[in-house]
């Protein structure tokens, strides 16, 4: 089965000069802390371990770290979107 998914994005423009927005679904968070390990300027954890956003916007300098956090989050609770 070949699957095609609708293309509604513009990933080729991602991160070129303007900040990206970080979205966190806290109720999905499993408190692994992997995001803090990947991007400690952007994420922290509360006392129960649930992830907290320290900033909602990231520029090119931290984009790589946040992309890493998106990828390693074991709960798929983090997304990077264009504002």
């Amino acid at each position, binding site marked *: *089965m*070949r699957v095609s*998914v*609708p*293309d*509604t994005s513009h990933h080729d423009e991602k991160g070129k000069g303007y900040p990206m927005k970080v979205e966190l679904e806290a109720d999905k968070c499993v408190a*692994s*802390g992997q995001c803090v390990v990947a991007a400690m300027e952007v994420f922290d954890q509360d006392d129960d371990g649930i992830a907290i956003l320290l900033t909602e916007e990231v520029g090119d300098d931290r984009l790589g770290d946040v*992309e890493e956090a998106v990828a390693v989050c074991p709960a*798929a609770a983090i997304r990077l979107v264009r504002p």
Partner: protein
Amino acid sequence: MRRIVVVGASAAGLATVETLRREGYDGTITLVGEETELPYDRPPLSKQLLAAEWEADRLALRTSADLAALDLDLRLGVAATGLEPGTRTVRLADGSEVPYDGMVVATGVRPRRLPGEGAHVLRTLGDALTLRERLSPGRRLVVVGAGFLGAEAAAVARRLGAEVTLLEPAAVPLAHAVGTAVGHLLARAHVDQGIDLRCGVTVTEVTEEGVRLAGGEVVEADEVLVAVGSLPNTEWLRGGGLALGDGVVCDEYCEAAPNVYAAGDVARWYNPLFGTSMRVEHRTNAAEQGMAAARNLLAAPAARRPFAPVPYFWSDQYDMKVQAYGFLRGHEEVAVVEGDLARRRFVVAYRRGDRVTGALAVGMPPRVLRRWRQAIATEADWRETVRTEARAVS
């Protein structure tokens, strides 16, 4: 490199293809998945999904727009059946052949089964939904195997009101993984919740009435869940020139053969941080290893980096969240280094040789455990790191 095939469309395969694009690779990516669903997350299957707290749509790892942006040649619902290293071609179950310049194997594992028909296993979304339909108050569920998966499913079933019997061959559940003291503590939680936990019990087969034990006794059940570990999906690679041995055997770069890498549950690679080869069936490792394999596949030989992670896993059991870092198997000593086992708020550290090689926490603030992760990552000396007053447990 113009054509990359990634076989396996779950967490490791997805992380691989995302990283390939993020690193700037703009050639063809074929992503092959045996299941028909778009990539979804498996840990909630034995947790929120089984408990009916979440529905299947919450398990999607990416939106269809995110996937579309990756510009994939996506082949779902079709298994890979063979590898031809001479022509560098992957054969698929629908008869098609996909040529590659580079390949990543991320075909995961499948549940080990027992003789006899009619038992549930818990690996796919379909498995979880089928079992969920059969769990209701008063139903008798026998879970074979008190590892993390079996224990989580038993906990959920009990909370849903099922009568649960948990059968475990070892004297103490999970002792080989987390040590006897922590194993006892997790076992006690089951008993406290009204689960009939029987250890030192070997199940020989699934029968119409339930399961038969080694001594001949039958434990009756309405439903049986077999959770006795898993087997790496490597059969399709036989004759493909790769070393297979409890997984796809890889070097420290996750490379199995020139331009062929493996990632996730199926990969057995040499982790230089621990000086041993390992195969890790944890969600976080799938993502990290997929990223590492993708980067090394694209990198010039001198720019490749060994994959030397500190493994991480978590497990939800009743009100306890268990979190662990490191490589706990084969540990030689366990010590309580923070908190108190009896209060179910603690960190225990694991020693192998003269190093801190693992840490496991229940009910502790995250910063505390992160310190121990750091100790593992920096190969901290046991005697310098673990205070002398720390209480040794078994």
